């Protein structure tokens, strides 16, 4: 692998996202409580845990699609949870989000998908927008696919087009929901390289929901580990450190696919 991951970040890096005492609930059903973690600028931050423990729900909270039952989410020094609609909209424009299913707008071509945010939030002329859209698509390896509709390309290509759209406005923070789900090992490796490239060249902070161990160790340099049974986070930090040093059997089992940490059936929520 050509790109090296910085193993440690200077401790004075400013926090990009701070989550403080967040509880997530559907009505009276509490999904996760007491979530506390900090995503530093330039981090590739992994939200991990077993299936169905609420990883994607954490992401939905971070991007404002759901409100925390208690606690707050702070971006830089702006309190996202307490902010008014205008401030929130400003913040949202600095995010790029790749949804689990790609969520490309099916009635628009790829170029229109990528160009829509540019058309809405910039003063560029249509021809310029098309050029930038073509550039963003070229960055994810989809040169020449500008006039295809999402249902005419493969799942992996849809994922990459989704990334191109997420990058349209050169966001400060990129969120990825299960980016490698449904991709073959090579595509998912290429996607990992792309994510690293984005962080290293643009300095984008990246938050990823995933349980792909290969990706977690290749690109992640910080993480939060959610546990379905105790309904809270049980660890934070560098995933490689956690694998090497964690004493918690639940984490060791997860990060080694059950080779360390003992009984598989007991520790799986």
């Amino acid at each position, binding site marked *: 692998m050509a790109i090296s991951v910085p193993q440690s970040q200077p401790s004075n890096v400013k926090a990009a996202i701070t989550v403080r005492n967040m509880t997530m609930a559907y009505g009276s059903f509490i999904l996760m409580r007491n979530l506390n973690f900090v995503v530093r600028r330039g981090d590739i931050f992994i939200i991990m845990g077993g299936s169905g423990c609420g990883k994607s729900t954490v992401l939905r909270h971070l991007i404002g699609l759901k409100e925390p039952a208690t606690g707050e989410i702070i971006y830089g020094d702006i309190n996202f949870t307490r902010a008014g609609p205008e401030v929130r909209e400003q913040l949202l424009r600095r995010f790029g989000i790749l949804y689990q299913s790609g*969520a490309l707008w099916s009635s628009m071509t790829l170029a229109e998908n990528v160009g829509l945010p540019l058309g809405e939030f910039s003063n560029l002329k249509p021809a310029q927008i098309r050029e930038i859209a073509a550039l963003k698509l070229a960055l994810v390896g989809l040169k020449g696919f500008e006039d295809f509709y999402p249902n005419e390309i493969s799942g992996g290509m849809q994922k990459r087009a989704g990334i191109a759209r997420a990058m349209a406005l050169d966001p400060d923070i990129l969120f990825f929901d299960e980016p490698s789900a449904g991709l073959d090992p090579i595509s998912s490796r290429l996607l990992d390289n792309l994510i690293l490239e984005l962080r290293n060249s643009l300095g984008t902070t990246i938050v990823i929901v995933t349980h792909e161990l290969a990706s977690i160790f290749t690109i992640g340099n910080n993480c939060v580990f959610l546990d379905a049974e105790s309904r809270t986070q049980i660890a934070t930090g560098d995933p490689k450190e956690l694998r090497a040093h964690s004493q918690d059997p639940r984490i060791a089992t997860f990060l080694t696919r059950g080779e360390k940490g003992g009984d598989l059936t007991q520790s799986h929520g």
Partner: protein
Amino acid sequence: MRQDEQGEVSFEQASDATLVVRLSGSWCLRNDMPAAALLAEQLKAVTPKRVLFDSSPITNWDSSLIAFLTQSSEICRAHGIKQDRGGLQDGLRHLVELAEAVPEKTGARSASVRPSFLTRVGNATIGYGHAVGEFLSFLGELSVALARFLRGKARYRRVDLLEAIQQCGAEAVGIVSLIAFLIGVILAFMGAVQLSQFGASIYVADLVGIGMVRDMGAMMTAIIMSGRTGAAFAAKLGTMKVTQETDALTTMGISPLEFLVLPRVLALIIMMPLLCLFADLIGIFGGLFVGVSMLGLAPGSYMRETISTLTLTNLFGGLLKATTYGVLIAIAGCLRGFQCGNSSSAVGDAATQAVVMSIVMVVVACGLFAVVFNILGI
């Protein structure tokens, strides 16, 4: 192995304390299988300390045998009797152990307990309360979006508007003409039976003309558009919700209501009166067809009678109704689409509910119009 051979179980008292459960024959899901209840009955009759399973005479087995064994071992556990699986083949024993490896999650089954009648009534009432709240907030947001549109600040794509206009305008002309023509014919027949008794067949023209223009034109167009366009809106928006496309708009700072609902509402506001006008005309031709072919009226006098009886008030009353119905259909379709759950069956439900809701709202609105027009003397 013979297909008709069945799995069998027999019991044998080996010594005082041990019951041997002997499994024989072919245990196959396609054949009938003995119930584990046999063992329970056997355990009532004799009370052994230990149960030994023996599968050596068995010829063939699949998951039916594993199901029998797991049920049996639950019965043994309930009676506090020790089990000996030494007589089972290795593969079989491993599968039974695998099925019992993860203990049943406590509380997982209690969720499906049917709540009491009062609880259900209470929940349904609270649900209706929420639905009314959601409806009102949707109306409020839509009004804000319309206000932004009037000030030229709304975010939507012209292409979407044109596409919606084509979908709920031009493409609906065929079905609207067919239904309107038939309604004209039906009105004419209904009138002709009575009016010809008095030798007043020419008044069929009045009946059809006023009937179509005042009410039936708008009403039938609305019913067709509910089924056609209302359902399409709900299905489209519902699918976009399932595939997270609406989320993608929201998190980009684009209001899905403005971007998706506004063009659809505008399209129906623009196209419903035009379709209604068209339906009125075709309906009158339907009446003319019956008048000329069945009642022997002259086409010229039929049209003169129609023109002399219709007023602009009738016409604009009908068009006003059509526009209102259009707004109601768009609201029902888009609201149900936005409320759609996260599965493909939810999209189907949303489309059904959209059609039901829009037809009900259209008929209720029609009744209100009748009362108001009557009071105003129109």
